[in-house]
């Protein structure tokens, strides 16, 4: 069986500044990864590391500067029928209160998706389809019928958003920080939902987050991104239990542990994003505790160590 999505040397360059003083920011730098069927793949990293840009390229909102995105061995830039692609890839966004227009009823979003893709012919069938998808996320049509987004809780809205994305029977779901705005008491139910859907519907999920604890909880494989590079990719247990790249170590160390006895006291360095994007050599060399001379001159290559891919001079031989 072929892989669901394959990215090869995906690159996106943004240029900043006026006509005379142009600087180029490589937001995503030669990133390659694969997403298997029925797999939850996490893209993790701090803000401004290029994870959302990668997602936008997959969704077709942004064109890659170079590189390829293959969906079941078909290049998505060369697809004739874009609509077919949109049918197979759906997105769930961060803030459910901003996803929905407060002046429109939630159900109208469902009807619009059905209408846009000509999914069913009669109103009765449409109603059944909506009910079926809402059941899948633990809601029922009577709970959202005739309601505006303000009348539903954040958890219900995020569930509706997921149900809407399931209408077209997609094979790939892109979830960009889907739980960061959901109440703490409801967060795990949404996270569990992704796992259930992946297992029962064979859906691949690209889960974008900076919260490594939930990433560890649901995903199969994880890629840690830093300033446009994927610095460490591998099975989630391997990457998070035994981190190899110094940046992954820093990220794991920064998670506030839910245990008052384990307080972080070691100070950290904090650098501006722009400064790091324009850095020569390894982008992390400015704050890396294990920095060597070579890191400041040469960009490290990908090396495989124990079934993971690491981009670091420490593992080069």
């Amino acid at each position: 069986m072929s892989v669901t999505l394959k990215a090869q040397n995906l690159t996106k360059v943004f240029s900043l500044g006026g006509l005379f003083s142009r600087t180029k920011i490589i937001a995503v730098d030669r990133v390659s990864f694969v997403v298997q069927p029925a797999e939850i793949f996490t893209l993790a990293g701090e803000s401004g590391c290029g994870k959302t840009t990668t997602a936008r390229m997959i969704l077709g909102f942004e064109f890659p500067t170079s590189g390829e995105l293959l969906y079941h061995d078909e290049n998505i830039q060369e697809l004739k029928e874009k609509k077919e692609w949109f049918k197979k890839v759906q997105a769930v966004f961060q803030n459910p209160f901003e996803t929905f227009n407060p002046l429109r009823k939630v159900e109208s979003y469902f009807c619009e998706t059905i209408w846009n893709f000509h999914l069913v012919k009669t109103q009765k069938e449409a109603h059944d389809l909506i009910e079926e998808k809402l059941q899948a996320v633990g809601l029922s049509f009577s709970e959202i019928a005739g309601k505006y987004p303000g009348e539903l809780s954040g958890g219900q809205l995020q569930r509706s958003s997921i149900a809407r994305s399931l209408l077209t029977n997609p094979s790939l779901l892109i979830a960009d920080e889907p739980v960061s705005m959901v109440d703490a008491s409801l967060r795990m139910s949404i996270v569990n939902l992704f796992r259930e859907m992946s297992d029962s519907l064979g859906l691949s999920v690209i889960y974008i987050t900076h919260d490594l604890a939930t990433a560890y909880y649901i995903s199969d494989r994880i890629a840690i991104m830093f300033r446009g590079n994927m610095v460490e990719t591998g099975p989630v247990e391997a990457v998070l239990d035994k981190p190899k790249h110094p940046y992954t170590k820093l990220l794991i160390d920064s998670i506030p542990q839910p245990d008052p006895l384990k307080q972080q006291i070691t100070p950290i360095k904090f650098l501006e994003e722009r400064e790091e994007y324009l850095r020569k050599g390894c982008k992390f060399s400015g704050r890396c505790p294990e920095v060597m001379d070579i890191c400041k001159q040469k960009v490290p290559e990908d090396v495989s160590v124990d079934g993971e891919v690491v981009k670091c001079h420490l593992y080069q031989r």
Partner: protein
Amino acid sequence: MNAIIKVEQLQAFYILEILGKRKTVKAVNEVNLDIPENEIYGIAGESGCGKTTLLKALFAFIEPPLQICTGKVNYSLNGKFVNALSLNGKERRELRWTYISYIPQGSMSVFNPVKKMKVIYLDFLESHLQGKANRELLTLARQHLEELGLSPQILNAYPHQLSGGMRQRVAIALSTLLKPRIILADEPTTALDVVAQRAVLQLMRDIQHELKNTIVLVTHDMGIHANITTRMAIMYAGRIVEEASTQDIFSRPLHPYTQYLIQSLPRIGDKTTRSSVPGSPPSLIDPPPGCPFHPRCVQVLDLCTREMPQLQDDETNHKVACWLRSDQNVRHP
């Protein structure tokens, strides 16, 4: 334990009139709270439980439709307790930023995008310290930033040139310029990633250590509370349901809601299934009778549906409002 703020029987409601119908949102309901001096005090709870309203009441910043129905917010000023809600506008203004300061939610976007940070800092200082030249004030600002380990060069930058984490730290630095005794911080780390979040927490810890003041930190993230606070309160539907030292809350949570909150936290190295609290948060306009948590509680008693339990203290200063833990419940089962 010396209290610096004492809240007594506070009720802060939003009173709305929509199409002639009167609606009351009971955002803060019968809250009694002692906030200790020289500590980082945490308030946890989910969105819409009244955390921000409680902070506004603590800051004595009451604007319609918010109204204080009953209760007092006492500040400890020179050894005496003064009810902040009874002060007039001028007196409140004098206390603000010098005695008590407030870091509002989303404070990383409070800066005027077309003004340099320098101008924003000068504006702030000029309105509080009269009769000083601009140069003196700028030196003060520079010194303050240096003390906090931030580069004074940011004074020459526009807000959009700084990253979110940096802006948040600059906003915190601005609120501590006049060395206030109390800092109220509303979700200072939300919308930041873990590394920036750690830098912000580090800054707050440093400030508290140096000024020996009180920080009241409001956030829904239990991980942050575990990390930085020494004592904390759990809020649910406008009421305080549990209050204890942070260590006790995590090692021995007594209220079923707190127990759920702590159990549902995912941890690295542990893939066992976690569940969230069943049901959804109650509406503050029409809260359920009795204990507001009873429709979602698995250990619900008949009494819970009728009467609201009071916050009760045990020997170790661990307070909880739950019939399951109440002595009265033992007497009348």
